[in-house]
């Protein structure tokens, strides 16, 4: 299925050339997003599809610069939003579009929606943000792994023994209590995602279900999109630890 753009295509791109598929997985930290991407990659490769991935701060152009800005906390919300959009379009234009032209399956570990939501909860106008990303590719499928903030908190804390400054929205002065700050921030993000889900037609999945259940739901939708029958999958030894 040909991927399309929201508004005008990026300069110099012919949408009909893009024969691959763009599949997006969105969700908060702790929603199981990255685990699912790893499993889907293995499944698709075992089915014979070549896979490319993208995510946040992974561009050669500014990925490391954003890491530096986040560490300093001196950056303003607008500048940060625009640095993230630079990071996004650098990956899209130089890595993802060539992959889609070659017929690959692109799995995006978050996409423009997280970027829009983060900036919107910080008071930047939604119209402004949609205006910037109107030249982005419209995904073939967008999944939203929805979890309650409390569950995300438990999972994140278990994983890294701490909660990140930005994921708890501490730049927004919501609460001095880290747990409260995290929950309030994630609730704001969730509201923004509800809005985006209606506007862009997300496929919402229960991120609190077991890894294997979520994975089966993802595979069913993706298999139908790719018109393949094989939805049977058991993770290899290397990924078996993710399977719960």
């Amino acid at each position, binding site marked *: 299925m040909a991927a399309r753009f929201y508004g005008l295509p990026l300069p110099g791109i012919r949408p009909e050339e893009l024969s691959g598929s763009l599949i997006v997985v969105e969700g908060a930290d702790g929603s199981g997003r990255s685990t699912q991407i790893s499993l889907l990659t293995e499944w698709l490769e075992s089915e014979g599809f070549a896979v490319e991935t993208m995510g946040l701060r992974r561009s050669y*152009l500014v990925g490391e610069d954003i890491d530096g*800005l986040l560490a300093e906390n001196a950056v303003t919300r607008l500048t940060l939003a625009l640095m993230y959009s*630079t990071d996004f*379009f650098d990956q899209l*234009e130089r890595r993802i579009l060539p992959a889609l032209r070659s017929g690959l399956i692109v799995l995006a570990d978050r996409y423009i929606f997280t970027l829009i939501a983060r900036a919107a909860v910080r*008071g*930047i106008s939604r119209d402004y943000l949609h*205006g*910037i990303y109107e030249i982005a590719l419209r995904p073939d499928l967008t999944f939203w792994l929805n979890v309650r903030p409390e569950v995300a908190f438990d999972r994140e804390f278990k994983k890294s023994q701490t909660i990140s400054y930005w994921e708890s929205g501490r730049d927004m002065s*919501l609460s001095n209590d880290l747990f409260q700050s995290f929950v309030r921030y994630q609730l704001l993000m969730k509201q923004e995602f509800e809005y985006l889900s209606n506007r862009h037609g997300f496929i919402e999945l229960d991120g609190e279900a077991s890894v294997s259940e979520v994975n089966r739901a993802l595979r069913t939708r993706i298999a139908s999109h790719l018109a393949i029958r094989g939805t049977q999958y058991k993770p290899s030894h290397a990924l078996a630890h993710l399977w719960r």
Partner: protein
Amino acid sequence: MATATSEVLTAERPLAERAPARQAGYPGALVVVEGIDGSGKSTQLYLLKRWLEIGGYRIHFTEWNSSPLVKSATRRGKQRRMLTPTTFSLLHAADFADRCERQILPLLHGGYLVLADRYVYTAFARDAARGCSPHWLRNLYSFAPVPDITFYFRAPLEVAVNRIVAGRPKLKYYEAGMDLGLSLDRAESFRIFQERILSNYDQMIETDRFVLMDGTVRVNRLQRLMRQLVAERVDLTRFAPKKK
């Protein structure tokens, strides 16, 4: 609940339709110079700045693309020639947003006369010449305060191009617009690129209320005119040194 603390980013209308700086709720004023390379704008703004400095006025001078924030990314992108029209534009927008939020706006609120060597019109003219959609660019920069005066220095293409080509041993890759594949000859590519930019500037004269300045007029005569226009349009007493 997060609140939008700033009045930036609320305007979705094009710059030209919005109120000039003085009605925008801050005591400062913004004077901008625009024009293609070699039009004489920087020389004239420098002389204006000297005049105001010597008079003891509260002023601040700022120029396009001068913040350390995106310097490493810009350098990296230019060295490897990996900037696309979109990422080139976004990187400059991030840089401008940083300057705007941390320098220009606080100074305007603090009652300064801000002098800007190039402003958002540079992005409108140059990035559109690279193929970005003018509509997309207007949205991208819609957070920028509207100048009180925008001087547009206009010199005939050949005059401006000769000033630059004669004074520089080698034109840089992006400066010459080599990324557009206009010509293999740098000087020729530069000329074609500047011609496009000039035509884009010309189209903004009315919509953005540019004050047209003839870049072929003798430097001191042009400066006299510039000072006269600034004095007429900006209440300079607001920025004058306090009498004791």
